[in-house]
């Protein structure tokens, strides 16, 4: 299998999203982003069930 270059190994790579933050601030930014998700618990549960169906049993 031919080894491909990771995006960050390429000269034109510019960090975006979480990776544009200083390393020490990334976790806080990441957790804050996920904490803003507001959805019914039923939707969350169904997503997991559907993935189980799509990919086979897991966990």
């Amino acid at each position, binding site marked *: 299998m031919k080894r491909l270059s990771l995006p960050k190994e390429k000269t034109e790579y510019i960090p975006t999203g979480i990776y544009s933050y200083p390393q020490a601030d990334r976790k806080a930014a990441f957790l804050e982003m*996920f904490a803003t998700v507001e959805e019914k618990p039923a939707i969350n549960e169904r997503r997991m069930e559907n993935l189980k169906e799509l*990919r*086979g049993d897991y966990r």
Partner: protein
Amino acid sequence: MNQASIFTLQKSGNIYEDSDTFPSELYVDTSAWITAYNGKSYNPVREFMGDCLNNNTTLYHSEMVLSEAVHVNEKAHYDIYADEYIPRARRHGNVNQKKLRELIRRDHPEILDNIRVSQNQLLHNIRTSSIFLEYEANEEMVEEVLRIQQASGNLLGVNDAKHVYIARQYGINSFLTTDRDFIALDNDNIYVLRNEKYIQEKIGRNNVFLEFDANKY
């Protein structure tokens, strides 16, 4: 076969019990993204991803992750209403999925907006916190995916094997997943939620961090 290293996400204070280092590259499969996305309370998968980011790990996703995430999210929204409409969408014992969705959309047109908003947020979170890995779907890929499946004793499904193929193409052999089949891999590092099954599966394995070695796959 089945000699991947298993690291559970059990934390004692600020230290992970199974590993004191973080991989520099980590492929996050769809099951882990969906687990991270769910719920507001403490979430070990989300916590681990955050710790990885603060320890200079780069997280990765792929088209496979985005497609699976879109699929399970869209279906989740329809499923909320489905029970009410199944009798009307049933013909000869089978449920006609197109008819089912048509009936739901007719009575609940807001569902399309809800799906769009939810999908945008889900994809935004994945794209913002991880890097996209491209792959070329060709004959070589099909052969390689089948080979990965066979090497796992056919425990991995085709979609699971595709995730593995995409990551390995880039020299990545660390996976964050809640899919138990990934532990059937070899020479890979598997990060999983702690449960009884993984505690048992860890027995007899070295469970040391394994460097990527193209000759071992």
